[in-house]
């Protein structure tokens, strides 16, 4: 199991990028009772048989990884959600894309911590691909949104440590502002 929900989010978005998506919409909503995440992509999608196999930890789509045959991303998500009284919903259509959404009960004693979300978001925005990532983040009545292209336009290459460090400061300040008095 991943150590934090931020790690799970990174994993699920990477799946979208690896499914040749050109656009991923990531929505993260928190409130005192629930944490809700939706990852919607326009990647190659899956038919019903492929979708069923994606839940099997001992299956990875042929060609996705040249060095191994297991795929733990979705099974780890489902395990975490099932163990903490939440719910997962995955829909997919071949050639149109996949939407993975889940919610967790914030009061459940076994829910993993949210983790270092600013760092996770930097990692996603900097993951090497031409995929646009749109983030919408809500906490109660506060929110912010940003896209990968906006960050690149503001900073330049997201492979330079100085720019990655500035991105991290950006997300950290945005996250802190979400938890200010509402």
């Amino acid at each position: 199991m991943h150590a934090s929900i931020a790690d799970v989010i990174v994993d699920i978005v990477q799946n979208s990028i690896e499914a040749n998506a050109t656009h991923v919409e990531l929505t993260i909503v928190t409130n005192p009772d629930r944490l809700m995440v939706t990852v919607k992509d326009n990647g190659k999608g899956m038919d019903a048989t492929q979708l069923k196999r994606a839940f099997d930890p001992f299956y990875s789509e042929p060609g996705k990884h040249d060095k191994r045959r297991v795929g733990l991303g979705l099974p780890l998500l489902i395990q975490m959600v099932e163990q903490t009284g939440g719910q997962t919903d995955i829909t997919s259509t071949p050639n149109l894309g996949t939407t993975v959404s889940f919610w967790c009960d914030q009061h459940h004693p076994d829910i993993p911590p949210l983790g270092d979300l600013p760092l996770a978001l930097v990692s996603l925005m900097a993951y090497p691909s031409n995929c646009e990532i749109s983030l919408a983040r809500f906490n109660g009545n506060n929110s912010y949104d940003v896209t990968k292209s906006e960050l690149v336009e503001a900073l330049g290459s997201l492979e330079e440590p100085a720019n990655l460090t500035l991105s991290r400061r950006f997300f950290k300040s945005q996250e802190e502002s979400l938890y200010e008095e509402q």
Partner: protein
Amino acid sequence: MSKKLTLDALRQLREDKQKELSKRDPANKDIQVIIGMGTCGIAAGAKNTFAAFLDILDAKNITNVLVRQTGCMGLCHSEPTVEVITHDMPPVIYGNVNKEACEKIISQHILEGKLVDDLICDRPAIDIIR
């Protein structure tokens, strides 16, 4: 109340940083640090490795390094894994790269051109990865 950093403020910070860097070091980015961020890497703490490289490179003002991410390198038993590519040495994959290991890789491999022997991983053999 914290001061929220906007994209405009971020643009300004970037310009300031660029001016500062161009005064100090115009060198080409000829070194790559590639961090394995597959499920196995993330579960083993690759995100902390990523953060440690950023923090140490920034603290030491090292500007000729690009930090990249990749998926699973096939060495799940030694995650987090990091490949270092420099122009005058063969590409090397290091395993079990925690914060201490990041320090060693930067100070020995990147700055001094010496391999960090105890962290080197062999690449998976072709017959195994098939």
